[in-house]
Each structure stands twice: as structure tokens, then as C-alpha cells.
């Protein structure tokens, strides 16, 4: 039996506030295609007496942590966090999918979930001669993250961003091979122990380096540093001001430091990444950057901003297929972008970039639509 003490579990997480209105499930992008039903799950926890059995609840791994459920809840119940806690209980018992196990082990050993060696982490930047933080007292730490460090597609984004920041004269440094995974996916996969250990390790490292201001490529890294570290006792000392790079670029554009001398003559639609938009309310900055680029025409999809459709890349879903590997949400999203008449699907998240690009290939739409990160579009317009 894989049971949780459901009464205490529900009280601690405020689940008794649930009025069973179903807004969480009505908006859940996975509820339409899998067995996941957040309202039903909460109700079953509430009525289970004092023991709720997690055995066989494979749908817990379907959640993409897109946060639509919480953002719609009128009673401020957070089904996503409840699901993560249930995953935690499963992981604690060691009953996890081999892929999850591999990702967690790699994160523990290599500082990334991608089974890549630590010594290759800064390969992407070897020809760029970037300042090492904090030597020379750089103003910002540029935290790259695992996907932009190792994935060839992600690396292009990181390099584009370096050139954009350079043209604006921003003073930043990187950690190189000393950079460690942010542990965001560790937390989403329910490995609370490893997460705590990594928060402790990273917090100590950042404190010692004297990081005051930092920014990230990935909204996932941004979110975990900004919102999750300080909630743990071992991360209480984490004090750096964290920004997503789109915030930095929007500021540089507004102050006139980042100038676009070129143009980007395309119809662009912007896909709001969950961890930038719903999780952190950053909707305007990415659009401000795009609208500041000469020649660029910004088109909105019906599902934009708060209503953005998850690409299905979050919540550990980069490592797991889930209970319905059929049509991925990213394919639905790409279809929406095609319907909008855009020729470029812009985003600002390495996971979104990979899943959406994959979906474009799957739909044989490479001729009609390209997926680009905002940093890449900005670089083309310098």
C-alpha cells in the first residue's frame, strides 16, 4: 500500500476549502486527454477517511504544473502543489518511473538531469570569452541553466542572448563549469530531499560568491530561485534579486541601452510560457521587447497571457510520456499559432522551444512556421 495520511495532508494544504466547483478541472489542459481530474482527486482525499492510497494513480505524473488549476480557483486551493506532494510520497517510497530515476540521479551526480558531464557545462561559451563571475565584479550573474548549457538548440539561445546583452553593454559574468542545476525539475518530480540538499548547496555557493543580481534563460530556473528557495530553511539566506532575461531586455530597451538597428519583418505570435506568465505574472515584458523590434508584427493567439496553453514540457514532463502519449499539447498549440497567420512562433523558455519545435516537425509545418526564442529574434534585429 502506498498511503498518505490524508486528513492531515488535506488540512495542511487547505484542501477542505474546496467547494467542488470544478474550475480547476474545467481549465486543466491534461484533464481533456488523461485521467487526471484535480477536483475529483481532492474530493477523494477529503472523503478517504485517514488513508488515501496512491497506488496506481499514474495520472499524478500527467500534471504539467502549468498552474491553471490554482489560477482559476476561487478559494485559493492549490491542486498543483497537492499533486507535487503526492508525487513526493511516491518518490519517498522509491516507486518511480525509470526515466525519473535517471533524471534525478543525473542531477545528483552531474548537476544536470541530462546525463551530461559537469566538465562540459560551459562548452557552449568556449568561443565567447565571457567574464567569470564574480571576477572583476560583474553587476549581474547570468545563470544559464541545464538545457541552454547542453542542448544544441538551447545553446543557440544562450549565445544569441549573450550577443544581445553585449550590444546593450550589460555587465555580467557566468559560473562556467561551476554552475549547478537549479533543481526546479527535482522539485516538480517530487524528490523533496534532493531538492532541499541542492537548495542548500546552491544558496551557500551564491552567498559566498556575493550574487546580488542575476537573471536566467529559463523561466523554470527563474521561478525556483525566485519563489521556492527562500521557503526552505536551508534557502532562507538566498538573497539575490532574480530576473528572467526578458525583464532585463525590456528594461534595457526602455532605457534606450538596447537598440534595434536592424529589423525583423515577420508576423510573430508569442506563446506565454507557464512559468513566466501564470506562475510569475510576466506577460508584458516579452511583448514590449517584440513590439520594439522594427518591422515585427505581433499577433495574439486566442489563448494568450493568462489563458496560454501549456506546451506539456513542465513538471518533469520532459522526462515522462504520461498516461496518454497521443496528441501532445504542443501540437495543439502549434496548430493555434498556424491558425493565427503567424510565420514565427516566439517563446522565452527552453522547454517550450524544444516541445514546440518538435510539434512543428511532427505536423510537417516547417515551411510555414518557425519557432524562435525572443533572444534569437532580438539578435536578428540588432
Amino acid at each position, binding site marked *: 500500500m502506498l498511503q498518505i495520511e490524508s486528513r492531515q495532508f488535506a488540512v495542511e494544504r487547505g484542501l477542505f476549502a474546496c*467547494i467542488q466547483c*470544478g474550475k480547476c478541472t474545467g481549465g486543466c489542459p491534461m484533464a481533456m486527454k488523461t485521467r487526471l481530474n484535480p477536483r475529483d482527486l481532492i474530493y477523494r482525499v477529503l472523503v478517504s477517511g485517514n488513508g488515501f492510497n496512491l497506488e496506481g494513480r499514474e495520472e499524478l505524473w500527467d500534471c504539467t504544473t502549468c498552474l491553471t488549476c490554482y489560477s482559476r480557483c476561487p478559494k485559493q486551493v492549490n491542486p498543483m502543489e497537492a499533486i507535487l506532494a503526492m508525487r513526493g510520497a511516491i518518490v519517498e517510497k522509491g516507486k518511480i518511473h525509470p526515466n525519473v530515476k535517471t533524471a534525478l540521479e543525473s542531477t545528483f551526480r552531474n548537476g544536470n538531469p541530462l546525463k551530461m558531464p559537469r566538465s562540459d557545462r560551459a562548452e557552449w561559451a568556449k568561443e565567447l570569452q565571457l567574464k567569470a563571475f564574480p571576477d572583476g565584479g560583474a553587476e549581474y550573474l547570468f545563470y544559464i541553466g541545464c538545457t541552454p548549457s547542453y542542448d544544441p538548440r538551447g545553446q543557440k539561445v544562450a549565445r544569441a542572448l549573450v550577443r544581445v546583452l553585449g550590444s546593450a553593454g550589460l555587465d555580467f559574468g557566468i559560473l562556467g563549469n561551476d554552475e549547478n542545476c537549479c533543481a526546479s525539475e527535482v522539485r516538480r518530480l517530487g524528490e523533496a530531499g534532493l531538492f532541499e540538499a541542492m537548495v542548500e548547496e546552491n544558496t551557500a555557493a551564491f552567498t559566498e560568491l556575493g550574487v546580488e543580481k542575476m537573471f536566467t534563460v529559463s523561466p523554470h530556473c527563474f521561478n525556483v530561485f525566485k519563489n521556492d528557495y527562500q521557503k526552505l530553511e536551508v534557502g532562507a539566506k538566498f538573497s539575490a534579486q532574480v530576473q528572467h532575461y526578458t525583464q532585463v531586455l525590456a528594461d534595457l530597451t526602455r532605457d534606450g541601452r538596447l537598440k534595434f538597428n536592424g529589423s525583423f519583418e515577420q508576423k510573430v505570435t508569442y506563446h506565454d510560457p507557464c512559468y513566466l506568465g501564470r506562475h510569475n505574472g510576466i506577460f508584458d515584458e516579452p511583448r514590449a521587447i517584440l513590439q520594439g523590434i522594427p518591422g515585427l508584427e505581433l499577433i495574439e493567439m486566442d489563448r494568450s497571457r493568462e*489563458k496560454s496553453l501549456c506546451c506539456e514540457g513542465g513538471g518533469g514532463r520532459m522526462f515522462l510520456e504520461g498516461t496518454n502519449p497521443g496528441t501532445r499539447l504542443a501540437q495543439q498549440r502549434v496548430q493555434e499559432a498556424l491558425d493565427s497567420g503567424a510565420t514565427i512562433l516566439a517563446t522565452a523558455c527552453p522547454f517550450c522551444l524544444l516541445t514546440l519545435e518538435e510539434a512543428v516537425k511532427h505536423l510537417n509545418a516547417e515551411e510555414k512556421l518557425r519557432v524562435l526564442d525572443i533572444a534569437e529574434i532580438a539578435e536578428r534585429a540588432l
Partner: protein
Amino acid sequence: MSDSIPSSANGRGAALVIGAGIAGIQAALDIADAGFKVYLVERSPSIGGRMSQLDKTFPTLDCSSCILTPKMADVPRNPNITLLTCTQVEAVEGQAGAFHVTLERQPRFVDESVCTGCGLCTDVCPVITPNIFNAALDSHKAIYRVFPQAVPAAFVIDKRPSPCKITCPAHIPVQGYIALIAQGKFREALQRVREAGVPFVGTLGRVCYHPCESECKRADWDEAVSICALKRIAYDAGRDDEKPQPVPIQYEEHVAVVGAGPAGLTTACNLTRRGYKVTVFDALPSPGGMLAAGIPEYRLPREVLNDEIDYVLAQGVELKLNTPIGRDGGPSLEDLRRDHQAVFLAIGAHGSSRLGVPGEDLPEVFQAVPFLRHMNMGHEANIGKHVAVIGGGNSAIDAARCALRLGAEVQLVYRRSRAEMPAAPWEVSAAEQEGVKLTFLSAPLRVIEKDGHAAGIECIRMKLGEPDSSGRRRPVPVDGTEYVMDVDTIIAAIGQNVESDGLGVETKWGQFVVDPLTLETSAKGVFAGGDAVIGPASVVEAIGAGLQAAESIHRYLRGMDLRDGRSQDHPKSKDIQISPAEAVKRAPREHMPELPVAERINNFREVELGLTAEQAMAEAQRCLSCAVCSECNQCVTACQRGAIVPEDAPRRIEVDVGAIVVATGFDVFDPRRKPEFGYGKYPQVITSLEFERLASASGPTAGRISLNGHPPNKVTFIHCVGSRDRSLNLPNCSRVCCMAVAKQAHLAHDRLPGAQITVFYMDVRAFGKGFEEFYDRVRKEGILYRRGNPSEIVRRGDHLFVRAEDTLLGEPVEVESDLIVLAAGLTPRADASGLAQILHLVQGTDGYFQEAHPKLRTVESSVPGMYLAGCCQGPKDIPDTVAQAKAAASAAMILLNGKGANHASN
């Protein structure tokens, strides 16, 4: 309505009722029927409140208007009630039994006691604006009646500030003449500007620097309205040869105006119209000041200027030319003051700043102002073939373009860069097109002399240093960069000053020192304005000063307060929010036709040719009507009873009352705060209040439920939008929505035969008398209630889908819908905390006014002597509101009868 209001009736005390919805009306009627005096204060132009917007009431399906209007009609018929609409409470002092209340009545601009409600005004009004009463589903004119059964029945004008009028130094009613031009009424448009005291319409339409256009809100959509060009066509197409008749002199005082420029002539024109005898003195042989002496003919044809000056003079202004004052043998200011009871000094800034370099007194070195004057007065100008103009202002550009037209090769030398040039950018580019060469960052060192004549100019390159006191970067010479320009004529245009010596009035740097509001100088009865006060500026600023001076001089001569009611504080144009009546369709400005460069550079023909009538009408239709009322005054002309009061102003009213009933009602939740429903984005998504107007026989569709003319076939209602929602900090239940939705679902079923009607609900609160029975009836009609509250609305193609979980099925569902009604919750009034401060009322954590005890003192507020009625205390339906209003009236009457003092002060 009369200004004097009796302070009490029969000596039995009086009550103030704030808010005239059903709660306020009921409380006022009860108190008045009991023999007490009531002041019923309502901030909107009509009583009736929210109930007047509803179609039917639940659960009895009475027509809301039919049961409300008799009560509304009782209000003006009740001799004990004084109804004050457009009025708000400003301050309350005192205590229970003896409150002193200050009210402010906003202008209605229509005399309620004279208006018969015939509607002739509304027929001629050119402005449409969203109809808020109909939830903006249709529109009405700027002069309107809120709804046909409004009480009072009088019309009202919606008049707001507009950026163009505020920004204009002469505060010309821009939107007024633009609205008239949009209708092709050019003559009326010209008349409208002249009525506003501005005689130089064709002139301003050609030479104004139009600061109004920089603030025009239309630029937020595409480009500013071409206001200046429209003013020009008002004159060009609206003028006729008829001259005004001399105005009869009413007063014995005689006013002297020194200077026949735009400031002086504007003052003279306006004082003459008011019935004063005015004499204008000018040192030059012809009138017009800088308009005549400074502005070249190719920008302002003399025929236009002279026609407008003749318009001023024809009204009876006396003009004495060749008469300098205080110099050159002319009469002194003292002489003028002896013979005139007031003097306006508008002498302009005709002096020139010297270059301060060796050789500047050579015969081929001219100053721009005398050079332009010389030419403009019709004299030959003897200049050479290679001319250097020094300076970057408008006079420099004028001089350069004139020299060019005389056949010279012209170089303009300016010591800073293009960005710092004070000249209007469109003038600079016109000069460049015509062939004037511009040299930036260069300054003259000396004029090179050869045989007593100028033979060139030595200049030095400059660079921009730190900003100086004017905020512009100071030019600094670059050593070793001296060079010689081969020219034979130099025109200096580096500054103008005021020739103010010899008048004996206090000056600073030569400019007269005046009170900025009244334009009074240090000498009693002597006023000054225009360039003579602010230095070389613009025509429109001079005209503004002329208007200011005329008002001051009239007040001065009539012994009135010079400052009362005048202010230079205006709303900031950036704070002005507008909601155009219709979606703004992008349309670029009409292009001003110009004489081709080749046809203009060897003559002084006018360069800008003016818009055609068709262009002008199209351009005028681009105006967004920020001010709503355009002040075109067509209604004034149309009203046969003279009920329109354009000069109506806010008025303070003080009343003494013993008790106060607060009945200020509620606001409707703005569903834009829940973006997942796409309200404001999808036209098919509306609020329940909007549904009421659609269903109402007196609404925009006369009761046909339709969107864009199509009756919907699939109607979905969504409960609890903006209520019971902690994520919005609106945790309370709105109490009326469950039954309102049931009623509306019934109406939809009744009016839309065969339509599929779905209600998504969490739970149905049918707690009142007859409510559950009504809910039963509605379901039996075939309306599908599905349990589950929708999460979002999405659009695919042209279709909208409500996405929810049917919690009884345990499955996510999508329901296609062509009309979606959001049961938007009730919220406290947005300005409830403002009123709470004035009255010292306590608000609950939900924002509603807090009663003194939740069980036992439900109509008493936290302040003794003040009582609560209706939704200002919390959401409630009509029967509960009426009951509470009657209870509040009763509590107030107990106090007024002197029986409740002990209780009230507890």
C-alpha cells in the same frame, strides 16, 4: 431650479438622503410623507438607480420600470422633497440632530425649470457617445436624457475636459468647430471660433504652432487630428464679405490698447463687443503687429490678415497708427492714463539682440526683424547673392526663406544641432526643400570687412557641452576650427527683445512684470500681455493673453474681483481617459496640399494650399470627441425656450439636516478582471446587467435579445463571476445573482424559441419568498442546469466554447455558445471609501458600509444620526432594499422627532 433652498419644513427638521435609487426614493418619500423636509441628493442626472435599468424583477416577473416610475414621479410632486440631481456631498459637520452639509452640484448646462424635454437639441447635436445607461450597448448624443422616464425630465449635457482646448493658450473650443466642419457647416465653424473671442481664425489656421495637435488623443490610435488645417478651412470656406456692425457703446469708460498686434486687437475686439469704447495705438503705419511686420506673405497672405483686422475694426475699434507711446515724440503712458480708464500694453518684442561680433555695423549686416518688416511693408530689400542667416528660430527661417525668394543663395548658421533648433520642424524642412543650406554647430566670430563693406564671415565650429539653464546643451567653441564663409550679406536672427523703456512700468530683462492670472502691471489700471510679457512667442499665446486682458479689464472697470473663478489649473491631458463611441478605425491624416517647390522659390505666393472641403470633412470626422460636448452651441440655437445654459458652473449648496440616510447602491464587477472569460474581447460575452438592457423593451434593441441583429441560439449563463472569489478579494456571495440568472434564463427561453439554454452553477441559493418555486418553474421550462463552474471561454474559428467540468459527470465538457451571460457580482461603489471619509462611516472588510450591529441595529451606521439603506450596506434584492429603506426612514424620523437622541448617541 432656484438657488435658494429652504432649510427646513414646518420647523420639524429635515433629512438628507444620499442616492436616489429605489432605496433612496423610498426613504425620501416615507420621511417626506411623515411631514419632514427631505433633500434627496443624486449624483447622476436622473433618479431611479439600478432598478430603472432592469427589465423584469424576480420571482414575480413584474416590469421593473412599470413599478418604479410611479414612485419616481412621486418625488418631484412631493412638496417636502427638494431633489438635487448632478449633486454630491462634499462635507458634513456637526452631529446627530444638527448636521451641516455642503453639497456640490455639477452643472447640467440645461435649466430644469425651462426645459420641456422636446428633444430639438438632441436632433442637432453632432456628437455621439456611449450610452452608459444601456451598458454602452448603444450610444446617445452629447445632450441627452438618461432614459425616457427620467426624473427630472430635463436634458443634460455631458461636458468634459479635452486635451486640445486645455492645451490651446487661447482655449479655443476646438472640438466645437471640428464637429461643425464634420457636418460641412463651415460658416458656423468660423462663427464658433469668433464667438469664443478669437478674431484671427484664418491667420491661426496658417501660422499657429498648434500645440493642441501634440496632445491630441487620436495619436494614440494613429495620428493627431489636423486641427490647424481645419481651423484654416473654417475661415477659407466659411467667410463671407459681410462685415459685422459696430457694437453700441454701453459704458462710459474708455480703454487704450497699445499695440495693434494679435494680443492688442484681440483685447480691443472683446472689449468693444462688451460695450466699451476702445482706441488702439500703434507705432507702425499699418496694423497687425508681428503678423504684418514679421510673418512673410508666403505663410500668411495679406488679404487674409487684412480681412481679419477689418473684422475687428468694423465692430467699432478706433485705430491710431504712426503713434508710438512713451518714445519718438508720441504721447506718454501718463497721457493715456489721463484720458483712458484702463490701458493694455501689447507692444510685442520688436527689438533685436546684437551679434556682439566685430563688423556687425557694416551696411550689409541686417537684423532679421527690421529686414522682414521692411519687406513685409512693401519695400525693396537690397541684399546680395550670398546670404548667411545667423540663428535657429522661426525668424531666422523666415528671413532665410525670404532671402531665397529674392534670388539669393542662403546658408543658415546655427550654433547648436538640429535637435535644439527652436524653429518649428515643419518650417525647417520646408526651408531645406526650397534650397536653404543648414550649417549646424557653427557660430560667427567676426564679419570680414573690405573697403567698408561686408566681404564674408568668419565662423568657428562648436560642440555641445553640458546642459545650460534652458536644459539645452550649451555650445562650446572647438579651438582651431575657424573658417571663412564667402558671403556678401549677413542677417542676424539670434533674438528679439521688448522695447519697454520710457513707459515707467516695472520690467525684468525688458519684459513687463505682470500677475500671470490677471495681467495687472505695477501701475494701477495698466495691464500687459503677449510678447511684451513673455518674450518672443507665438500668435496663439498673444491671442490668449488678449482674451485674459479683456476679461481683467472688464472686471477692473466694473469693480469686480479680478481673480474670482479664474484659474490656470487645468486637468492634465495625460489624465484624460476617453472611450470613443465606436471602435476607432485607423485613418491617416488628410495631407495638406502645397505649392511645388519650383513654383514657390521665386515669389511670395502662399505655400500651403489648404484642404478641400471633402478632405476637411473626412479629417474632422477623425476627432474622437474627448470632451463629449463639443461646445458647438447648435443646441443653444435650436432650443426655442432658451433652456441651454452653456456657462453653467459648479455650485455649492449648504443645508442643515437632523438625520442622514445613505443609499448609494453598488457597482457591478468588471469581468475584465477575470481574463479567462474574454469579456471585452469577445462581443458575445456580456454581463447580466447588459442582458437586462438587451431584454428591456426600452433598451437598445427594444427587447429583442440579439447581437449584431442575430438572435442567439445557444445561450449559456455562468454563475458567481466576481463573487465568492477569494483570489479577487471578493469573498462574499452577491446574493441576487442566482435568482437573476434564473429570471434571465426564463426571459431567454421566452424570447428565443427553440434556443438551447444552459446554466452552469455551483449551488443555487433560492432562499427568498417564492424563489425556490420560481427556480422549479424555470427548470421545468427546459433550461438545463449543469453543476460545475466554468473555467474559461475559448474561441475556435468563429465559435466560442465554454470550458467547464460537469462535476456530476466528473468530466471536462465544452459547450458551444453564441451568447454567454456572466452573472457579474455586486461590489461596493468604487468611491465608497471617499464617501466613508466624508461621513466618517466605517466600512466592513468587504468594503460595504458597516451597520452598527449585525443583528439588532441593521439600519444604523457607525455614526449616530446616519442610517444605511440598500446595497451600500451589502448586496440585497429589491424587496429587502425597500424594507431596509423604510426601516432607515423610520429610524431617521424617530431622531427627527427628538425621540431617538439617547439611542442614537449610544
